């Protein structure tokens, strides 16, 4: 515990437990060891960097890079350049894979660009807001303030979520659907819009393709069938369909309830279809807004720290694009995509002849606790021939490494930029000095690159940014000076003088087909229920999410004395608690087909019978991801964190069930 700032004893509400979460101390010097059997020992930077260079050089061709969705754009740019130029691979990715990769994949398939299409300010001036699979009130509180401004300006708010969340409490209608039935819901809404004659035929004809196929696809999804599958009354679905189609302006917002499924990209396409059907995209106040979970998960992808895109979201497969980067970087780029985070983990799997991936450079990520099926993730990381972790803490992942490099905290100890959910690039500035010998990510990467024969010279973060601007047209107009002047600028910004509209894809409304550009295709996606089926043995659907005062694996958020923090619970509805004969605070065993954990019970009337909820915030006490399933979206690689099948057992468990 950390002096006076640590959590202190308190017990005010019933069931609240005394709790001092594990407090991570900052790393202050490099750590090395020869094998995982040995403890770490302190090393000089010289020794640590030499070991890293040797470890990576020995595994060229079997290398993967985990960049960091919480670090700056500049760091992500240099990290992907390191993977591509120094190591000659497109195997670079980050935790975008565990959250919003399906949003990027779905949006770019429809519109050619992977960003949310509108801005926060627009939601204050819209007429209808749909929050789908999103508890923004907890997970994105300041975005939700813009939503509430919209509501107070007269917008109608609908919530589509299996849980009656604190977001749903603000809605005029809550559609509490069964987990994993988002596509039936969306298709039924689409069918109802078509049958009610509310489709925007002018927009469909002008700007989209594949409508006839879409119409046939959704035809079976009558309101009554949808009611049967989703569990939501037909009348409520019809009401949302009509409200969305009739609204002058409408915003469709989603979070991980849509993306963290084995068919997350299909879910995203199903939602985009509704905007194409009604013309709620490409206009001020009408658009699609995926709410990103990390401060720079948008920017990491924009910077090319993903296996299929070069900086500026430019396709690796395009020969002309590759040629420009090859010229700019003085290298040769492979003409195929690299492995994404999920595929890299699969490639670590030991097999005869050796694993395909033997060395990993992991910056600021904690996959040992954030990946679904964490036991498997730890096993695979432990099998690597060489693992270097660069972080501000000795995380569970770092504990598996051969070399640990102490870095600076991106948001408070470095200069640079990050890109938020509305595509706004904003300046990050250094406010405090890092502890001990911790160094900036970019300097560390450049030092390793130099040892491997690439002498990059960047005077500062602005020099990196200016190099990025020179290769990414949509960032070209954003000088540091202009970012300061405008308090951030949204991409695209190709011009040094002008600013673009706050929304994307206005081109779709252009009467001139030349300027309108490629048509937006309807996504022809089918319903596919969650992989982990509930049955007699595992009768409860477990879904996961965030709480207001905590963040991801809790390494950052565990350190401040939050009066709201109550640790990990398995949350049940009152009916289920009665059925299983368990009470508030009682410790129970929670078991899925992959593993089991013990957690106390919390009662939440916002849940429905058969639905349980847990977070991933306290993995050091309850490792929720031992329960989740690594059923991955084939397009984006995101795992189905939102739908596991579990059972609850009272303790002690009888020997024979």
């Amino acid at each position, binding site marked *: 515990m950390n002096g006076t700032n640590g959590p202190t004893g308190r017990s005010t509400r019933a069931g609240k437990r005394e709790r001092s979460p594990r407090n991570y101390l900052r790393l202050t010097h490099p750590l090395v060891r020869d094998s995982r059997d040995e403890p770490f020992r302190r090393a000089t930077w010289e020794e640590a960097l030499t070991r890293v260079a040797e470890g990576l050089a020995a595994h060229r061709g079997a290398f993967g890079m985990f960049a960091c969705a919480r670090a700056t754009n500049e760091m992500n740019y240099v990290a992907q350049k390191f993977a591509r130029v120094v190591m000659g691979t497109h195997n670079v990715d980050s935790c975008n894979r565990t959250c919003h990769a399906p949003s990027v994949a779905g949006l770019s398939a429809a519109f050619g660009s992977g960003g949310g299409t509108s801005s926060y300010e627009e939601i204050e001036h819209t007429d209808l807001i749909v929050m789908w699979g999103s508890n923004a009130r907890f997970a*994105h509180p300041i975005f939700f303030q813009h939503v509430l401004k919209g509501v107070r300006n007269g917008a109608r708010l609908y919530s589509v979520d299996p849980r009656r969340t604190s977001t749903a409490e603000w809605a005029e209608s809550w559609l509490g659907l069964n987990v994993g039935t988002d596509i039936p819901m969306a298709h039924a809404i689409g069918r109802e819009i078509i049958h009610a004659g509310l489709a925007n035929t002018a927009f469909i004809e002008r700007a989209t393709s594949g409508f006839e196929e879409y119409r046939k696809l959704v035809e079976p999804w009558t309101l009554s069938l949808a009611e049967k599958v989703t569990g939501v009354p037909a009348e409520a679905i019809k009401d949302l369909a009509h409200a969305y189609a009739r609204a002058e302006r409408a915003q469709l917002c989603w979070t991980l309830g849509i993306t963290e499924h084995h068919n997350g990209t299909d879910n995203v396409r199903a939602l985009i279809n509704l905007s194409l059907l009604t013309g709620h995209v490409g206009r001020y106040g009408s658009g699609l807004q995926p709410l990103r979970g990390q401060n*720079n998960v948008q920017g990491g992808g924009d910077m090319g720290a993903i296996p299929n895109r070069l900086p500026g979201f430019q396709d690796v497969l395009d020969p002309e694009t590759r040629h420009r980067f090859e010229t700019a970087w003085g290298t040769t780029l492979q003409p195929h995509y690299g492995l994404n985070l999920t595929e890299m983990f699969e490639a670590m799997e030991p097999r005869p002849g050796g694993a395909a991936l033997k060395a990993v450079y992991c910056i600021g990520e904690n996959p040992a606790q954030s990946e679904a099926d964490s036991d498997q993730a730890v096993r695979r990381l432990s099998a690597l021939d060489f693992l270097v972790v660069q972080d501000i803490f000795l995380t569970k992942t770092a504990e598996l490494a051969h070399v640990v490099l102490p870095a600076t905290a991106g948001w408070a100890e470095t200069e640079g930029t990050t890109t938020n959910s509305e595509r706004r690039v*904003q300046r990050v500035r250094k406010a405090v000095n890092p502890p001990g010998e911790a160094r900036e990510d970019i300097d560390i990467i450049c030092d390793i690159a130099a040892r491997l024969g690439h002498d990059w010279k960047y005077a500062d973060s602005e020099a990196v940014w200016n190099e990025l601007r020179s290769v990414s047209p949509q960032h070209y107009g954003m000088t540091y000076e202009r970012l300061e002047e405008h308090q951030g600028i949204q991409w695209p910004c190709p011009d040094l003088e002008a600013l673009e509209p706050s929304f994307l894809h206005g081109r779709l409304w*252009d009467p001139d087909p030349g300027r309108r550009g490629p048509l937006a295709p309807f996504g022809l996606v089918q319903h596919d229920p969650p992989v982990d089926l509930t049955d007699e043995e595992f009768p409860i659907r477990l879904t996961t999410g965030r709480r207001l005062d905590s963040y991801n694996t809790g390494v950052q958020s565990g350190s401040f004395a939050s009066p709201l923090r109550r640790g990990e619970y398995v949350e049940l509805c009152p009916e289920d608690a009665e059925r299983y004969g368990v009470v508030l605070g009682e410790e129970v065993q929670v078991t899925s087909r992959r593993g089991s954990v013990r957690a106390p019970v919390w009662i939440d009337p916002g849940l429905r019978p058969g639905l349980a909820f847990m977070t991933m915030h306290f993995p050091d006490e309850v490792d929720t991801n031992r329960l989740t399933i690594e059923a991955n979206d084939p397009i984006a690689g995101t795992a189905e964190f939102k739908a596991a099948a579990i059972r609850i057992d009272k303790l002690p468990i009888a020997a024979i069930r």
Partner: protein
Amino acid sequence: MTTAESPVRGTAQGARGTAVPLAPPRRLLEFTIDDEPVRVPEGSTILDACRARGKDVPTLCQGDTLTPKNACRVCMVEVEGSRTLVPACSRRAEAGMAVRTDTERARHSRKIVLELLASSVDLSTTPGAAEWLKEYGAEPDRFGPDAARLNEGPKVDNDLYVRDYDKCILCYKCVDACGDQWQNTFAISVAGRGFDARIAVEHDAPLTDSACVYCGNCIEVCPTGALSFKSEFDMRAAGTWDESQQTRTTTVCAYCGVGCNLTLHVQDNEIVKVTSPHDNPVTHGNLCIKGRFGYQHVQNRD
């Protein structure tokens, strides 16, 4: 310099046909402040005009992110033809108005208001209060040592922020920030009537038993330091709080993808409090518990 090769040029042109609501052009109004001619856009308040002219009109309950409440009455000015003094913070400018900020009547009013406030409330942490008391010759002591005060001492019932209602001037800014103007949590309200009226959390419950979500947006708007960060409160108590030794650096929060701007107040390489720029398009000065208080992890240094 332009980028002819940019693939997104077409987007800009295509958007031309789409309706983007622009604020309608605003007329400029002409009037006088202290006999000097001023021109301000229609809709501006007298206070806006005064500040644009560099005139110092004291304010307490006025907040740049909040609707004027007209509670404190320290910003009163004289308008020719008006029977009563008017609050500069909320009265909109009108063409032809003759405003006087420094008349005997306005100064006398401010003096009395400051005397009443300072005799009943601890203004020791109110920025500007000491200067104003001097400027207007206010003598709060003239009501004698028995002038009514709350005298209940600071409430420290959690580790994040402290409520010291001995410093509260009942300006309602925290009520509005917690309520329908920003946070919509409604944990803070006014309890009691008349002289007994006071800011309370759910009829005087402890904070930890209330709906409070610890966003700290009430601290952000509090003009007197009645609401303060526990870190600031502790350092003041220990005599180590020194704003002249603090730097303020605006950066971006690391807790989600919304991109809230944080201003880190740093003393001796420790973050001691966090605010947000009131004119920021993402936050408008508001944060959540993680952004406002969740910084400790970077300084878990040993």
